[in-house]
Structure formats: C-alpha cells, structure tokens
C-alpha cells in the first residue's frame, strides 16, 4: 500500500515538474502575431502604377500621402518614374518641372496654399504618353 502511495506521489511530482517546464518553454517561445492595421491599404497610397514596366509609362508617388495634413507650406513630393520622363508637379499655387535621376527617383519641393490643396503629379514620357497622380494635402496648424 505504501509503495502505491509513493508511486502516485512520484507520478504527481514528475507531472508537476513537466507541466512547469512546458509552461516556461511555452512562455519563452510564444510570439504575438502582428496584426495589420485596418485601412492600411489607403494609408500612404503609392502611385497609380507601382510596377515599372519596360516601354510603358509609370509613376509611383511615395510622399506626401493622400489626405494627409501638413503644418508647413513647403512640402516635398517624392517618387519614382522612368529616368527619361519629365515630371510636372502642380499645386494650387505653382507648377514645378523636374527631371528624375538616373534611377528614376525624383524629389520636388513645392509650395502649398492654406487649406486644401490638390497635388497633381504628371510623368510625361518622351513619346508623349503620360501618367497622372492626384492627391489631397491640407495645410493645417489646428490642434484637435
């Protein structure tokens, strides 16, 4: 009888040890899945044609994000296109023309108006074909 009790006791003790070990191992290896933020598809929406294709125009505008707010009047429009294209960026206030670098990236500094601004970026290929991207940037210093 005593031996039986001893065996049961040892079994319980071993069970507890194993459970404790498994618990610690689980806690150390557990990873919290990174949930994609809702609505991320419309955040920082890149340009209209993000995939560069040989022989056809493409334009990808990285900044500013569509529907974004800016507390500065001078903003930078950054993106990528074909290196031989001509970039024209227009706001309510001015038009700025630029040539992209050898890898096709471009940065244009442009002035925006108070309130809402429509930023229109055109990439015109030497063949005359163009790709256009329109986005809204609002100048606001209001705290809310």
């Amino acid at each position, binding site marked *: 009888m*005593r031996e039986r009790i*001893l065996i049961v*006791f*040892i079994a*319980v*003790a071993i069970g*507890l*040890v194993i*459970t*404790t070990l498994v*618990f*610690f191992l689980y*806690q150390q290896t557990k990873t919290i899945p990174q949930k994609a*933020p*809702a*609505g*991320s598809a*419309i*955040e920082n*929406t890149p340009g209209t044609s993000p995939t560069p294709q040989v022989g056809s125009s493409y334009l990808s505008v990285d900044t500013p994000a*569509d*529907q*974004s*707010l800016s507390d500065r009047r001078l903003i930078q429009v950054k993106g990528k296109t074909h290196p031989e294209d*001509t970039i*024209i960026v*227009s706001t*309510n206030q*001015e*038009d*700025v*023309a630029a*040539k992209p670098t050898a890898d096709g990236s471009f940065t244009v500094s442009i002035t925006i*108006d*108070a*309130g*809402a*601004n*429509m930023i*229109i970026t*055109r990439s*015109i290929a*030497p*063949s*005359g*074909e*163009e790709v256009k991207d*329109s*986005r*809204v*940037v*609002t100048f*606001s210093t*209001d705290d*809310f």
Partner: protein
Amino acid sequence: MKKIFFVLFALVLIFTVKSVEAVTPTSEPTDTPVAKKTTPTPTAAAQDAQIEKIKDLVASRVAELKLVDKRGVLGYVKSSTNTEITINGNRGEIKSDVDELTKFESPSDKGSFGISDIKSGDLLSIVGLYNKETERILARFVSVASNIPENIEGVVTAIDPKNYTLTIATDDNKKIVVNVETSTKTSAYQDGDTLKSGFSKIDVGERLIVVGFTDKTDSNQINTERILHFPGMALSSNLTKYKSGK
C-alpha cells in the same frame, strides 16, 4: 521511508510555489512595501483601483490613437444631413460625421455659415479624425474649398489674338476656351528649363497645362491663372489628331 516522503513533499511544494510566482505580476515599488504587503488598508486598495483605472484609460487611449488618424479630405457634396456629410473625393465616396465641435467656414459667408448652408455639388474640404475601422471621418473643420483651381491639360487647337483666348482640346475630346488675362502667368518648359513666356509665344498644336477657375457665366470657359506650355514636346496618342489644330 518517512525521509523520502518528506523530500518528495518538499519538492512538490517548491515547484508549486515557483509556478504561482511565474504567473504573479511583479509588485510595484513603493516607499513602504512592508506595511503595504502585510496589512492592505482601504486607502491602498483604493489607490490600486485608481492605478488600474489609469492603466485601462492609457490602454484604451493607445488603441484609439492607433485606430484614429488625422486627415484632410476634399470632394463634392453628394448629400448632407444634420449629422452627416457624404462627399465624392478623388478616391471615391467619403462619409463624415458632424457633431457640436465641428466648425464650419465659407470664404463668401463669414460668421453665419453652418451645415444647413451646405448644398449638393459644393466643393468641401473636411479636416478631422479618420476612423480606420468604420472608414468615416469625424469632421472638426468643414470649409468650402473655393481656392482649388481647375488643372487642365490639352493641346492648343485655335488661338484668338484679338480676344486673347485659346481653344484647347483635352484628353477626353472636350474643347475648352481659355481666357488669357493680363494677370495670367505664362511659362514654357523646354530642354529641361522653365522659362518665362507669353501669349504670343504659344502655338497651335502645342501641349499645355492650364490652371484657372471656371467662368461663372460659361462653364466651358476657364479664366486662367497660369499656363505652362511645352514647345516641341510630343503629344499623347489621344491628342495627336489635334496637332495641326482643328
């Protein structure tokens, strides 16, 4: 035998206590930890409850900040009620909620402008808090966007030097009359440079971008603020038919 029992009992006790310790949160460092641990007074309990409440508030605020984003949208009013405005933006329909904190502004109607003055077809700029889950914007500032000009690209099909007007054809085969005024700023982009230009330097068949406002009496006319023309630049396939003018 008794010794073995005692050792096993001690082992079980140690492991049980360790497991409990692993799931017990670390105690907060306090000035008088001994007093707190031994006899928790009602004040200490109240403090703990308050700390928990603050923790919950911070957690919910963090979640809220991740879910909500400050945005500015622009679009033509589709419909409006006392609590909601629906606009058509450049990327589709946007619904915005209006509450007692929403401020309304119109350059032409200062002071008394409110939600009841908003009409279908008005161009509105709405700045507020965008909820990524509901995909709605809680409007904080609503203003009539009268400062947004038309930005039209096309090819010159006719020039009227007498009336200082240009007729341009757009990509969608629309013909628009462009009124060039004395205040119109004209520039030319050629060989990588933007140069100062004028009405007389614009030719038929040239590509150009016109920025201005639609004439109040004739919707087919644009009163131009700026013209950027591109001498020698190729036309897009949709516009090549207008190269020689009409």
